[in-house]
C-alpha cells in the first residue's frame, strides 16, 4: 500500500471522526475517561523521566563546559532551554508515542478483530466518532499538563544535582535557569506538544481501526502506530521549529 493510500484513508477516517457526537453526554464522559487513561496515567512515567533527564543534562552540561570564559550560570541556562525547547515537547512525545500510541492502537485493533466495531456500526453508531474523537480530545487537552509538569520536574532534577553534588552551586543553577528567560519558549513547547498529541492519538487510532486478522495483526498495527507516529513527530518538529522559531 502506497503512502498516498494511507493518507487518503486517514483523511477519510478523520472526516468521519470530526463530526458532531451523537450524544454529548456520552462524549464528555468518554473524554474524561480518556484524559485519565491516556493523560493522568502517563504522569508518573513523565515525571520520572523528566527528573532524571534534567539531572543528567545538568551534570553533562557542567562537565563539558569547563572553559573559564563560559560563565558558571551557563549550565542552568542550557538545561532550561534544552528542556523547554526540545525535551518537554518532542522527546517526551516520542516517549509517549510508545506508551499511549501502542495503548490506543491495541485497544481499537482488538475491538476491530473481535467485531466490537462492527457491532457499533450495526447499531447505527458512528464508530470512528465514538471511539476516536474522545481519545484525540482527551489526550490533546491533557498534554499541556504533562508538558508543564515535565518542565518543572526537569528543572527540579537539575536543582537536585546542584544540591547533592559539588558540580554547581544551587544559587548559580537558580540564577542560570532564570537568566534571559524567554516566555515564548514555553508557548512554543506547548504548541508543539499539542500537535504531537494529535499525531499520536489520530495515527494510532488509524492503525488500530484498520487492523485486520488476529492477535498478531493487532501487534503489527501497534508497532506501525508507534513507528509512524514517531516519524511524523520528527517531521513536524522540523516544520514547527522553522515556522515558530526562525
Amino acid at each position: 500500500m502506497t503512502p498516498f493510500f494511507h493518507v487518503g484513508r486517514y483523511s477519510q477516517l478523520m472526516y468521519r471522526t470530526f463530526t458532531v457526537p451523537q450524544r454529548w453526554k456520552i462524549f464528555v464522559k468518554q473524554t474524561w475517561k480518556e484524559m485519565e487513561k491516556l493523560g493522568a496515567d502517563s504522569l508518573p512515567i513523565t515525571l520520572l523521566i523528566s527528573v532524571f533527564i534534567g539531572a543528567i543534562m545538568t551534570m553533562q552540561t557542567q562537565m563539558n563546559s569547563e572553559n573559564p570564559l563560559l560563565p558558571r550560570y551557563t549550565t542552568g541556562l542550557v538545561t532550561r532551554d534544552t528542556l523547554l525547547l526540545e525535551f518537554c515537547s518532542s522527546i517526551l512525545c516520542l516517549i509517549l508515542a510508545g506508551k499511549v500510541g501502542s495503548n490506543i492502537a491495541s485497544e481499537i485493533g482488538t475491538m476491530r478483530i473481535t467485531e466490537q466495531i462492527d457491532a457499533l456500526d450495526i447499531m447505527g453508531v458512528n464508530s470512528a466518532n465514538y471511539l476516536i474523537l474522545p481519545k484525540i480530545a482527551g489526550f490533546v487537552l491533557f498534554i499541556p499538563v504533562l508538558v508543564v509538569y515535565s518542565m518543572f520536574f526537569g528543572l527540579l532534577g537539575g536543582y537536585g544535582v546542584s544540591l547533592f553534588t559539588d558540580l554547581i552551586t544551587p544559587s548559580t543553577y537558580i540564577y542560570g535557569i532564570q537568566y534571559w528567560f524567554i516566555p515564548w519558549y514555553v508557548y512554543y513547547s506547548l504548541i508543539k506538544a499539542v500537535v504531537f498529541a494529535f499525531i499520536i492519538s489520530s495515527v494510532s487510532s488509524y492503525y488500530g481501526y484498520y487492523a485486520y486478522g488476529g492477535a498478531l495483526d493487532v501487534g503489527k498495527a501497534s508497532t506501525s502506530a508507534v513507528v509512524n507516529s514517531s516519524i511524523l513527530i520528527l517531521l513536524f518538529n522540523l516544520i514547527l521549529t522553522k515556522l515558530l522559531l526562525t
Partner: protein
Amino acid sequence: MIELQDIHKSFDGREVIKGINAVFHTGQTNLIIGQSGSGKTVLLKCVVGLLNPDSGDILYDNRSLSAMDKNERVTLRTEMGMLFQGSALFDSMTIRDNVLFPLHMFSNLSDKEQVKRAMYCLERVGLGESASLFPAEVSGGMQKRAAIARAISLNPRYLFCDEPNSGLDPLTSIKIDELITDITQEFGMTTVINTHDMNSVLTMGEKICFIYQGDKAWEGNREELYESDNERLNEFVFASKMMQKKTRKQVQ
C-alpha cells in the same frame, strides 16, 4: 420482510456472491446455511450493510437500502439487532451497561426507564442476576444471551445472527436456538440466521437458503430438506453420521 435482489459481491476479482435472490419473511426464523467459505457471512454482511454489494439491492419492508441516504441508514440500523459469532460484547462494560448502550445512544427514555428496559431484556434471556458481571467473567453461552439481550433492547424489527451456536455445547446451543425462536415470535421480528449447525437447521428452519460457492443452490423448509434430491444439499446435510441415523429413523 427482507428481500434480496440479485446480490453480487467480489473481492480482488474473485466473485464471492453470485447473484442471490431471496425473501425473508416477518415472524419467521430464516436460515442461511452452507459450508465454511461458501459466502454466508459475506452475504449476511451485505444484508446488514457492513459490506456494500457490487450490484443488486436489498429491500427492508420495501425500503431500498441502496437508495437510502446516511440518515435513513442510521434510522434503519436502529431497527436492527445483531448477534455476532463471538458475541462482540464491549469488554470494558458490564453486561448491564452493554445492554444499556444502545438505549443510551438512541432512545429518548429517562435513565430510570432505560435501566428498567435493560433489566427486562436481561431477565428475558435469563441473565438478570449476572447483570453486574463483565463479559470476561461469564461463560460463552451467557455471553451469547447477553448479546441477544443487547440486540433486542431497542425492540428491533430485524434480527441477524451470525453462527449463534459456534463454540457452544449442544445443550446450550439448543437453549440459544429456542431463545431466538421465542423472541422472533414474541417481538414479531424478521430473523435471519447464518449457520452450519444441523441441529439448528432442523429445529428452527422455517425458511432455509442453502448457499453453495456463492450461489443459492436450494431453498425450502426443514420438512422439504429431507426429501430434496439436490446433490450438493444432501452432501452437506447428511455429512455427519448423526444426521444419517436421524434420517434413517424418520424414513422407518
